């Protein structure tokens, strides 16, 4: 993987915050799709319980979650249209909040 997050694989890679493991099974998963929404949908096929932890009922990214594509925070938190390359890495992490 280079410093932009691109990896050698031919499919986007989704990585979840390890903090989710307390609540539901998650792991790295290779997906297809050229937009974030499609990529995440595929990741949630493998880890269905994770969907409600990452997205709300409307499919929007939860307020205190952050999504990065190749190290850059996404712009469209509502409909998740940020582009994804075949060699992209998608990171889903917790935003910093609470106490």
């Amino acid at each position, binding site marked *: 993987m280079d410093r932009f997050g691109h990896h050698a694989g031919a499919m986007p890679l989704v990585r979840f915050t390890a903090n989710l493991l307390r*609540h539901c099974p998650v792991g790295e998963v290779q997906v297809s799709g050229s937009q974030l929404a499609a990529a995440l949908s595929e990741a949630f096929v493998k880890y269905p*319980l994770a969907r409600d932890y990452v997205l709300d*009922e409307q*499919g929007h990214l939860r307020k205190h979650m952050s999504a990065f594509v190749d190290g850059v925070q996404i712009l469209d938190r509502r409909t998740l249209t940020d582009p994804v390359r075949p060699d992209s890495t998608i990171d889903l992490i917790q935003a910093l*909040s*609470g106490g």
Partner: protein
Amino acid sequence: MLLHVATRKGLFVYALDAAQPVLTGRHFLGDNVTLSLADPRSGRWYAALDHGHFGAKLKGSSDHGATWSDLPAPAYPKRPEGAPDEIGADGRPVPWSLKRIWALETGGPDQPGRLWCGTIPGGLFRSDDHGATWSLVDSLWNHPDRLKWFGGGADYPGIHSICVDPRDSRVVRVAVSCGGVWTTRDDGATWHNTAHGMFAEFMPPELRGDVNIQDAHRMVQCAGQPDRFWVQHHNGVFRSDDGATTWQHCPNVPPSGIGFGFAVAVHPRQGDTAWLIPGIKDERRIPVDGKVVVTRTQDGGKSWQILRDGLPQHDAYDLTFRHACDIAADGATLAFGSTTGAWWLSRDGGDHWLEVTAHLPPIHAVRLVG
């Protein structure tokens, strides 16, 4: 008898039978447990969690907390792609997304499996299968006056109190912060705002008596005299003698004279007897003079006694939230907890209090069980 204590960092269960309560259960340590429910019909326990980052969740247990399983949290229906935002009374878009489970109650004994769930941002949900599935009560959510509601302490309005009438389970009243009191007499098919008589001095004069803006903090119903209700309101204390149809203000509630607070409890048989956990009003929200007290009326709010035996009387800044006070069916056992992580128990209607601990995480809710 048990006490559930739902806190910012877990659900704690105490056995109350010995003179000194014993901590017997620690559940979801580290997680924000906002509410619990023990269903006396089925014996099942429920716990509402708010993970913050990961959203609000619901857990259930059929073995008194030995094991917990995931239940689906009530979910708002998916809005059509591109639908314009709903704009609430405060000009903010109202999200169709569960922010917090703020009320969880059982249906009547003739409705096995029925649960009611009130939420922020204002949706009421119903389950008829012990929480395995939930449906939004469309009749209330789609009522045009719902968009007149607005958030009080939270960003969005919420339903925090649900009273199922012991005479007829189809009659349900809910209280909303800020949105008044709503009543259905047909099991949720139709709803009417029944906050008549409440007022809000802090609002512009034109809206002072508007039923849709009333900030009920907590509403309770007397099981034995079901036409008697009490509401701890942002603007003081209100009593209803006609089944939550009209409301009378109770003035001069000590120690502040205003009657500011969040929690209220009513005696299960004597509707004239109620308890409050008062504080300095909204701009401070701490006990008057740093003294934690309970106020009790036994004459329907004409007069109030200040109860302080066993409660901290100097430099105590405990605040009791709306769900953090409960009374048992015996009418004598009361418990309340605070944001400072203390909780107190009385076995004699509040005359004497035992400080059980002052070291829990901030307490959201207490629930006496059994």
